[in-house]
C-alpha cells in the first residue's frame, strides 16, 4: 500500500494517499450527481453549479493542507467543502435550503461557510473569496502563525482586479497564500480565450515575483505534487505561489445550462481525461488495490450519497421565526 507511484508527468505520491484522494473524488462525483438529480426534480432552490470533472483540483490541493489551514472557495465549491471535511448530509441539506443544513438553509450552494474546518466559504461573487483567504494569511502573519491559506477561483476571476491586488499584497508581505486557478475553459458561457489577454497565464503571477505554474488539473497526482510544493513554500515563510490547474466541468455553468457554446469534439476529448479514470488506472496498475475493489469503492460512494437524498429532500424547512436570527451577534 505504501509504494510510491510515478505518473507520466513525473509526479509521485504515496499509494495510501492516492487511494484516499481517489475515494474523496468518488464521493464528490456522486454527491454532485445526486445534487444534479435533486435539482432536475425541482428540489433545489435557486441556482446550483456542479464541479463534476474538477475533482482532482479540489482534492489534490486540499490533500496538501493541514486541518488548521484555511481555504476560500467559489460558486462551484461543493468539492472544496467535502475535501476540507464537511459532513455531506449537512452540505446536501444546505444546498436544499433545509433547517438541518450546515448554515440553517441561509446560504444554499453558493455561500456555505464552515469555520470549524477553516473554510471561509463558497462565494457568489466571482473572485470574492480571494481577499478573504489572503486576509486569513495576513492574520496568520500578525499572530506569528504558519497557517497556510488557499484561494480557489475559476478562470472567470482571472480578469477581476481583486486577484491582482491580492497577488501584489501577498507578494510584498510574503503571505502564506496559494492562489489556485481552476481553469475549466469557460467563465459562465464565455470561453477563456475570448476574454483573457496576454501570452501567458502564469505570467500573471510572475509579474509580482510569485512562483507560478500551469499543470494538468485532471491528474490528481500532478495537482497534489504542485500543491505540496506551494504549501511547503508558504509554510516556510517564503510567500505565495500561483497554480493554474487546467480542468473541465463536465456539466454546464449551472444545472439546466444546455451548453450550446461547447464543442462536442472538445467535450469528448476531455471526457477521456476524466480524473477518476486516471487515478483508478494508476491505482490498479501499481497494484495498490484490485479493479474489483476500486469498483466497490465507487459503489460505496454511490450508495452513500443516494441513501441521503430522500431524507434530505423530506427534511424540515427552517422555521419562520429564525428569519431574523444572526443578522447581528
Amino acid at each position: 500500500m505504501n509504494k510510491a507511484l510515478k505518473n507520466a508527468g513525473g509526479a509521485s505520491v504515496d499509494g495510501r494517499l492516492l487511494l484516499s484522494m481517489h475515494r474523496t473524488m468518488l464521493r464528490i462525483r456522486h454527491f454532485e450527481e445526486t445534487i444534479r438529480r435533486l435539482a432536475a426534480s425541482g428540489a433545489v432552490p435557486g441556482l446550483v453549479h456542479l464541479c463534476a470533472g474538477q475533482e482532482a483540483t479540489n482534492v489534490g490541493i486540499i490533500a496538501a493542507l493541514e486541518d488548521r489551514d484555511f481555504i476560500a472557495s467559489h460558486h462551484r465549491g461543493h468539492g472544496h467543502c467535502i475535501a476540507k471535511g464537511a459532513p455531506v448530509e449537512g452540505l446536501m441539506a444546505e444546498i436544499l435550503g433545509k433547517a438541518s443544513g450546515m448554515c440553517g438553509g441561509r446560504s444554499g450552494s453558493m455561500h456555505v461557510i464552515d469555520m470549524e474546518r477553516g473554510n471561509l466559504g463558497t462565494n457568489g461573487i466571482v473572485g470574492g473569496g480571494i481577499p478573504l483567504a489572503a486576509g486569513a494569511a495576513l492574520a496568520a502573519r500578525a499572530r506569528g502563525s504558519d497557517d497556510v491559506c488557499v484561494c480557489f477561483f475559476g478562470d472567470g476571476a482571472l480578469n477581476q482586479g481583486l486577484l491582482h491586488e491580492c497577488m501584489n499584497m501577498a507578494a510584498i508581505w510574503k503571505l502564506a497564500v496559494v492562489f489556485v486557478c481552476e481553469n475549466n475553459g469557460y467563465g459562465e458561457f464565455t470561453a477563456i480565450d475570448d476574454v483573457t489577454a496576454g501570452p501567458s497565464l502564469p505570467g500573471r503571477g510572475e509579474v509580482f515575483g510569485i512562483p507560478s505554474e500551469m499543470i494538468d488539473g485532471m491528474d490528481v497526482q500532478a495537482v497534489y505534487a504542485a500543491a505540496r510544493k506551494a504549501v511547503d513554500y508558504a509554510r516556510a515563510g517564503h510567500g505565495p505561489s500561483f497554480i493554474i490547474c487546467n480542468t473541465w466541468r463536465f456539466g454546464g455553468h449551472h444545472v439546466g445550462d444546455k451548453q450550446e457554446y461547447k464543442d462536442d469534439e472538445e467535450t469528448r476529448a476531455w471526457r477521456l481525461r476524466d480524473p477518476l479514470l486516471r487515478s483508478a488506472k494508476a491505482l490498479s496498475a501499481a497494484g495498490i488495490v484490485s479493479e474489483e475493489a476500486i469498483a466497490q469503492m465507487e459503489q460505496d460512494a454511490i450508495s452513500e450519497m443516494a441513501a441521503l437524498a430522500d431524507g434530505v429532500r423530506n427534511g424540515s424547512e427552517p422555521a419562520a421565526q429564525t428569519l431574523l436570527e444572526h443578522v447581528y451577534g
Partner: protein
Amino acid sequence: MDESRLMNFRDAVLEALFLEMRADPNVILVGEDVGAAGGVFKQTQGLFDEFGDRRVIDTPISEPGAFGMAIGAAMSGMRPVFEVMFGDFMTLCMDQLVNQAAKVRYMSNGAARVPLVLRTTMGTGANLGPQHSQGFYAWAAHTPGLKVVIPSNAADAGGLMRAAIRDDDPVLFFEDRLLYNSSCEIASGLPIVPIGSARIVREGRDVTIIAIGRMVAFAQEAADRLAKDGVDVEIVDPRTILPLDEATIVGSVKKTHRAIVVDGAPRAYGVTGEIAATIMEQAFDWLDAPVMRIAAVNAPVPVSRSLEPLVRPDANTIENAVRAAIA
C-alpha cells in the same frame, strides 16, 4: 476622584486605538499611510512605533483588495480597524462591505463573525470637491448586518471607537474632518459609549432638533440664538444611525411636539427621511406640526469657496426652520 481632560476629536480616537490595541493583541490597524507616516491627518501617530509593522499595516492604494483582506483577517480571529482615507473611496470597498462583511454572520448561521471597524473621514468645508467630501453613511445603513456610527464630539468619538473595536459585527465609523480639532472635557479613562444609544445634548420644551455629526454643533449655535428669544430647543444626537435609538428620539418628540431632522448629506433617500418616518409612525398623535427635514442639496459638492457652503445646512438654516416650525 479622577480628573477629566480637555482633548480633541482626533486625539480621542487615537487614544481609543492605543487603549484597545494594548488590551487585545488581535486588534490591528490597516490602511494607507497609517504606519510610519502616522496618517495623512496625523490621526494614527505613534501607533506604528508602539505596535510595529505586524499590527499597524501600511497598504498599497488598493482599497478593494485590502479591505477584503481585512474581512478575511476578521473572520479568522483578528479585530481589524481598516482606514479609508476619504469616505468617498469607500465606494471602492462596497462589494466586500455589502456582499461579504455584512452577510458572513447570517450566511454562516452565526458560526462566523466579522469584528471589523471601517474608519473613514468625511464632510464638506475644506473645498475638497465632489470626490473628497461625501458621507455615505445612508448607503451603508441600508445594508442589514452593518452598524453605522457618526460621532459629533471628541468624547463620543473616543468612547464609540472603543465600543466599535469591541463589537463583534462590522461597524462603520464616520469622522467629520472639520471636527478633528474640536475639543471637549473627557472623563479619565476614556469611557466606552455604547453603540445604539442617542444623547440628549440639550434639554428644551418647544421643539426637538435631531442632528447628525457636525450638524449638532450648528444646532447648538441656533439653539443659543433662539434661547435669547425665549425659544427652548431640545437637541438629540443619535450618535449611531444603525442601530437607531428610536426610543430616545420619539420620547423627546412626545415631550416637545415638534421635530426637525438635520443632516449634512444629501436629502433624497437619506437619514432625515428615515428618522422623520420613524417619528410619524411612533409619535404622530403627539405632533403639533409636520416633521421638518433639513439636509444637503441633491447635488455634488463643488470646490468653489462661495458655492460649497451653500450645499449643506448651517446654524442660520436651522434657526430659520425652528422659527417656521413654532410660528
